[in-house]
């Protein structure tokens, strides 16, 4: 193990990546503040995606040419593990906001507990959840909310199944059954795509028939920030799994060495667990 740790000489991706991200952020700010700059934002986004693709390609090439050793593998494992922990904390902020609003803010607005004066702001307001009529009448709440036992339940079953199919694919890879792995992984990707489509349908329904919008008070806000960021993670996870599918077909992985695949599994399971939390606390309870 002596002297074997691979330290890449130089790379242009980090500095180009930060420039691209900066461009994207400036473009986004311009769009939001001044209502123009879409092209700058999209250029930045394209830059970020390109840099990521080329950077990961470098890593794949280095890995396949045998530059990495067991210690490097552990670095990737720690790195991915802590990255997922950071994602957990990101969602924790939104769940925390949801719990705070439901447990404290809304009951207090309704006059409960020692925060009496808060109730004087809108004396007519009665606390309830889902919050269909926000305290101030200038903000109209949702007309109704989704039943958890229709589309959300279907999506729950889809995501849990996808975790199972992915595990089957992983086990097949570990046993060297590349074709079986490929088929189950393809199935997982398909389930991911189904989830995204159904979530899209639900968003359409939310705006078209349920009155659940971003502007619909705190219910709409928490609903969209939680399901929205989760949805983005499913899209990213599906893209990652598609890349893994291509790499499986190109015979990149061996039964022993396939951390790229395993990291994708970790990520997918994490996204799955977040959904279970969403299903319980956004839809059911």
């Amino acid at each position: 193990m002596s002297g074997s740790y691979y330290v890449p000489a130089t790379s242009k991706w980090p500095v180009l990546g930060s420039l691209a991200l900066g461009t994207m952020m400036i473009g986004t700010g311009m769009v939001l503040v001044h209502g123009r700059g879409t092209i700058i934002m999209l250029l930045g986004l394209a830059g970020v995606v390109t840099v990521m693709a080329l950077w990961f390609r470098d890593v794949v090439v280095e890995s396949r040419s045998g530059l990495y050793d067991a210690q490097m593998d552990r670095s990737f494992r720690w790195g991915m593990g802590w990255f997922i922990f950071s994602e957990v904390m990101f969602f924790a902020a939104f769940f925390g906001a949801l719990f705070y609003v439901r447990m404290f803010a809304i009951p207090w607005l309704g006059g409960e507990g020692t925060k009496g004066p808060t109730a004087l702001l809108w004396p007519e307001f009665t606390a309830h959840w889902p919050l269909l009529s926000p305290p101030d009448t200038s903000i109209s709440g949702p007309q109704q909310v989704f039943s958890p036992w229709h589309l959300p339940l279907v999506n729950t079953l889809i995501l849990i199944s996808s975790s199972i199919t992915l595990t089957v694919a992983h086990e097949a890879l570990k046993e060297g059954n590349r074709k079986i792995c490929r088929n189950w992984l393809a199935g997982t990707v398909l389930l991911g795509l189904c989830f995204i489509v159904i979530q899209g349908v639900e968003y359409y329904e939310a705006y078209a028939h349920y009155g659940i919008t971003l502007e619909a008070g705190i219910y709409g806000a928490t609903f969209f920030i939680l399901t929205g960021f989760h949805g983005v993670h499913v899209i990213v996870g599906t893209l990652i799994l598609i890349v893994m599918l291509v790499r499986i077909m190109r015979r990149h992985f061996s039964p022993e060495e396939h951390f790229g695949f395993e990291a994708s599994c970790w990520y997918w399971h994490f996204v799955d667990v977040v959904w279970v939390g969403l299903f319980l606390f956004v839809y059911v309870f």
Partner: protein
Amino acid sequence: MAPKVPPQPTLEQSSNAAEAGHGHAHEAPPKGLMRWLLTTNHKEIGSLYLIFSLVMFFIGGIFALVVRLELFQPGLQFVNPEFFNQMTTMHGLIMVFAAVMPAFTGLANWMIPLQIGAPDMALPRLNNFSFWLLPVSFGLLLSTLFMPGGGPNFGWTFYAPLSTTFAPPSTTFFILALHIAGISSILGAINIVATILNMRAPGMRMMDMPLFVWTWLITGFLLIAVMPVLAGVITMMLMDINFGTSFFNAAGGGDPVLFQHLFWFFGHPEVYIMILPAFGIVSAIIPAFARKRLFGYASMVYATAAIALLSFMVWGHHMFVVGMPLVGQLFFMYATMLIAVPTGVKVFNWIATLFHGSISFEPPMLFALAFVVLFTIGGFSGLMLAIAPADFQYHDTYFVVAHFHYVLVPGAIFAIMAGVYFWLPKWTGHYPHERLSQWHFWLSVIGVNLTFFPMHFSGLAGMPRRIPDYALQFADFNMVSSIGAFMFGFSQLLFVAVVIICVRGGKKAPAAAWGDYADDLEWSVPSPAPLHTFETPPNYQRPAH
């Protein structure tokens, strides 16, 4: 501060490095600007972080001097209140996110691989990405000052609805800049944690690690845990501002207080992010110049971990006056006071290390000793603030300003400077200029106390923070503070001079530059440290106690 290249062949590394093969025999690094843009070397990236932080320290310092200039006398003299608000806000943001945090990350980059016997950081390219996000982020943040409506003017804590409903249009850019800085911090922290957990020299157990490494491991954990929460809360702000959501708007069922809970859930651990690595630096310096082993190594580790864990359950002490159920106030009050226990363990350990030591007063030691005394003053005023009923009086007065500047300036920043003086011989091969360093120290320590000590009194007498004008009764205290601030600010030019002189020449330093009791692994490589060190992991020998 740039490391000297090309590397001199060294001890045991050189022979094996040649055999190591794998095609990563070092190609000639790119020259000039490209070398710094493309580098993956932890020492070069560390230097970049430190230089960036120093530049930002001066920019944030100029903002502070604008504030102190206006407060030199009662009445409005130099700037209008709107600009004054932007200055207090930007001073805080730049100092916290662009000066103190990158300085510690820079020290971590330079020293952690050297202290644990690693060839580099675990993920060198990611390391470079983390750095280059910073100029992009803070370039964008500073540019908001020139945007229509001005830059952020709601204080560095950017409470909603000041930062949402009543914010200037540039706030969206402020949020996006902070997102970039957050990504940088998270990736940097992941890298440091992975390095510490995975790259230690064979034979080095966790409890063999130098305390700077330990404190950074725990700091890294805190960063990974709370920077995403900051990202979450500023995303909610972005939504409230641009997409009509009601997170912090009670009219829609949200709550502005929710912002404060989320912000301080990030903000309190953030405070320890800025002080734990300082503890590590001081714990390296005091034994070196007291010529004694550190007293209570294990208790230092456990105390650091205890402080970190407690930091997740005390955020409410920033919010006593916002209106909180009594049981919440009691919980946050007692939990906050509990932090004094592990912190006290640390202070007593440093004092016990000094006890019966053979003490000498080189520049790093001067700063470290000042740290122990002055940080403790900040700790005590923190205890006063922790008492909820007392805090009702102190809240939002200059007493709070005095408190957190005592822990951040003679606390975090003195520790950073102590670290720089301590490790400059390793970086440059030269000792810092003794007489100039002493001038820097004494002017700084006098300036800091002149600036911040009177703030205790003006605060207790009721002077509110973040207001450009004040009642006549506060005039004397403010004049003293302003004189002290300019004295402290301009003496930092001496620091720049010391660093530049040290890079260019000076008394030559041997590998073990500070004697027998500074014997962590970094002192086993030559001074200046060659560009690549420990390409073959050294065999770690536990020092005999």
